[in-house]
């Protein structure tokens, strides 16, 4: 009889949107505490999650103090030596840091551009397919690589690009486009492209899913109406499908920007080798090698603070721009 669902009886609890709006108005008049008392069950229900977020997301920020100390493990907080911004000064005067930053940003931006354009085009094209079975088949095949580990992907890519029996070189030589196999993996300047291309291969299908889902949410009447008005398929794509998923695109884009500096390091670590070090070193790898592996916890923390601060700034900037330009934002 519905008694087991808390908050289910809507006439006693202000749970519906309409009631929320009402509560919002009352909030101003009656003050915070009164509203809190009225909505005590809602507050109580959200409490575990607030505690959760506090413990796991805010409490660890305390560790940032490490960046301003000469942190030695196993010593108490008050026994640590405070050094101010020394680690940041060192960080900003290290050439390797700028190299890592350049590589991170380059691969990140390339990945962002390609990683958005390709899945969107793919989703729109897939949506135009008529044969349901064929469509499903293509979709499944294209997102399967997402579940393959980077270790395996790196092995595949290296093998494909190998000079000894690698498929790409064999093909190019066979077609007489080149005379001698190219050492793809030894060319630093190609490394970014190789990483981006393998990333597209691996994640394209997976990233398409969310756009396809958004497309199904578009009202079919719009298409019917446009057809009546004589719109071609390209017109429909351009004027109905793409605007229909614009919100999804903006939201995902803004969130991606926030992760611009956090691109992980598996790809670079697994595909890279000593020859392409100047192009494969990324920030997280730098933090690992020059921070954690050497036991320089303070230095590693300084890098991570830099990361976080830049990410937050980027996120707010882009969010602000979007808010102003397209009225779409996530905050």
């Amino acid at each position, binding site marked *: 009889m519905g*008694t*087991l669902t*808390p*908050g*289910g*009886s809507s006439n*006693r609890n202000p749970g519906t949107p309409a009631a929320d709006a009402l509560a919002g108005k009352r909030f101003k008049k009656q003050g915070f505490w009164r509203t809190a008392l009225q909505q005590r*069950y809602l507050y*109580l*229900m959200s*409490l*575990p999650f607030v*505690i*959760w977020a506090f*413990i796991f997301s805010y409490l660890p920020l305390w560790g940032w103090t490490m960046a301003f100390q000469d942190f*030695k*493990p*196993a010593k108490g907080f008050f026994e640590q030596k405070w050094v101010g911004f020394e680690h940041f000064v060192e960080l900003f005067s290290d050439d*390797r840091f700028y190299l890592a930053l350049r590589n991170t940003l380059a691969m990140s931006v390339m990945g962002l551009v390609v990683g958005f354009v390709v899945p969107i085009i793919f989703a729109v094209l897939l949506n135009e397919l008529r044969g349901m079975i064929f469509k499903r088949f293509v979709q499944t095949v294209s997102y399967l690589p997402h579940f393959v580990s980077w270790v395996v992907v790196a*092995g595949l890519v*290296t*093998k494909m690009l*190998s*000079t*000894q029996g690698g498929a790409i070189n064999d093909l190019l030589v066979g077609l007489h486009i080149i005379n001698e196999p190219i*050492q793809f*993996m*030894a060319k630093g300047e190609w490394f970014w492209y190789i990483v981006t291309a393998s990333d597209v291969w691996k994640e394209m299908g997976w990233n398409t899913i969310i756009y396809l889902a958004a497309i199904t949410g578009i009202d079919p009447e719009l298409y019917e109406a446009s057809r009546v008005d004589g719109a071609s398929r390209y017109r429909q794509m351009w004027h109905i499908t793409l605007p229909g998923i614009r919100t999804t695109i903006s939201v995902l884009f803004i969130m991606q920007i926030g992760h611009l500096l956090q691109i992980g390091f598996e790809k670079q670590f697994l595909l890279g*080798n*000593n*020859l392409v*070090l*100047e192009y494969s070193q990324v920030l997280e790898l730098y933090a*690992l*090698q*020059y921070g*954690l*592996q*050497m*036991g*320089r*916890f303070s*230095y590693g923390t300084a890098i991570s603070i830099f990361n976080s601060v830049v990410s937050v700034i980027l996120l707010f900037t882009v969010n602000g721009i979007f808010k102003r330009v397209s009225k779409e934002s996530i905050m």
Partner: protein
Amino acid sequence: MGNKKVKWVAPVALASIVGLTACGGASSDNRSAEEVESGPISFSLFSADSNSNWVGMKDAVGAAITEKTGVTLDAEYAIGGDTQKVSLMVASGEYPDLIMPKGDTSKLVDAGALVDLTDLIEQYAPNIKKMYAEDMNRLKYSKEDQSIYIIPTYTGVGQTTFDAGGGFELQLEVLKELGYPEIRTLEDFEKAIKEYYEKNPTINGQPTIPLSLNADDWKMMIGVTNPAFLATGLPDNGEFAINPDTYESQLHYKRPEEKEYFRWLNKMYNEGLLDKETFTQKSDQYLAKISSGRVLGTINQEWDYSEAENALKGSSDPTTQNRIYGHFPVTLNEQYKDHSFMDVGFPGGYGIGLTTNLSDAEQIRAIKFLDFLASDEGQVLVQWGVEGDHYNVEDGKRVIPQEIQDRKTNDNVAFTKETGIGMYTTMSPHYGDGVKDETGNYYTTNFPEQIQNAYTQPEKDALKQYNATTWKDLFPQADELGTSAWGAAYNLPAPNDSSYTVSFQKSQDIVRKRIPEAILAPADQFDTIYDGMLEELNADDILEMEKIFSQQIKDTVELWGTGK
């Protein structure tokens, strides 16, 4: 039982779940006093080396150890060359009971995580005490802190090596076809490869690879940079060349003669003899090539490629069986001698330690456990296995039955997993090859006759042609190479102040990038690139790093009392 009550339940339950999970990690394992003293006990162990054969002491030797000592080890082995695990332990303050940290000892010492073993050994470990009797000084941590934190278990006490696993490697098939020529200099080595390659451009239908090296990540030190000092007459001191009189140290690549070695690699590359993929291939690709039998020569240590070689040994085709490698003391020219077998004394170094995670009583139990492994009984168990199953005693001599030896040679992985022989050696304080126990038997299974027994037929045939019984016979012997006052520098704990570690890492980044670049360059650009690298390596902070290292060597010599 209205709505009201139910509404309360969910949030409260959730809150308490969160609360419980938050407190969950704090409980510690409390062992009763009795259990600690003699009952069955489990110790956790971390090793910075990987070990894919570990089956949780369910193997024969492991079961026997547990039966004797009551100790079960809950071991975790690092994956690959994992160096962050120990750092993470230090950061979190959560340690295993026993630890084998390899090069990361100093991080643990700085964090106060290791137990000083000096008194424990004195009181509770007669076997360990006996074993290191003369070398106790070499166990001490440093001149300032003379505690013993680590019992060196990676090297055997009194070790005499009976076989060569390093040097320059050539396929036995190449030697056979060329009539077993003398291989002494780079020129000989190159000539052999070239001649065979011209006659056999393909092997089993695939293109022949004249020379391939493993340069994946840190293996580049083993396969590319270490051979440079070996070929120019220096012993292995890690990345340094140490002056035996003044103990002044410099990065070894700075020596002009090593530049000539790399110039040779450059020449090999430009002549198409050095595998073009040498610097881009991963370890597994390298091993796949070796096991295909297409690689005529390599420059490496046997432990790195033995896995691939085992595949060749197990083949049914006699030619393929002959595609395994012989070892040669190749140098730049006749003027140099390969120093692989220099007598460095007991080098100390990597080993096993106890952490503060153990209570006082548990520490005693753990040291007794290690002492058992160091006892004659423990040694024989770890090295030989269980009597009756893995070896027999005939006329007072330990003998390994032929079928066991065959499995050990040809089916090593399964054999190790099943019996555990060889798996506990690196965690046991142990005697080295060539040391005999009270019964007149060798402690280890590596002694001249046993080594010769373990060779496959093609190896025996090839060695016969060189009038040798083991590969080591071809190398300069210890008595002509002098001694080292500091042991082997790669085995010493690295200085842990960050001005050293950061500059060292920087120097390694430079070397790992520039040396491949120089080798892969057109011949006329080699000098420019190599000299450019030397200039980068003469930066102030790197020179400073070399000074810190020199000081470390001086301190070690003083601590050990081995100076002149």
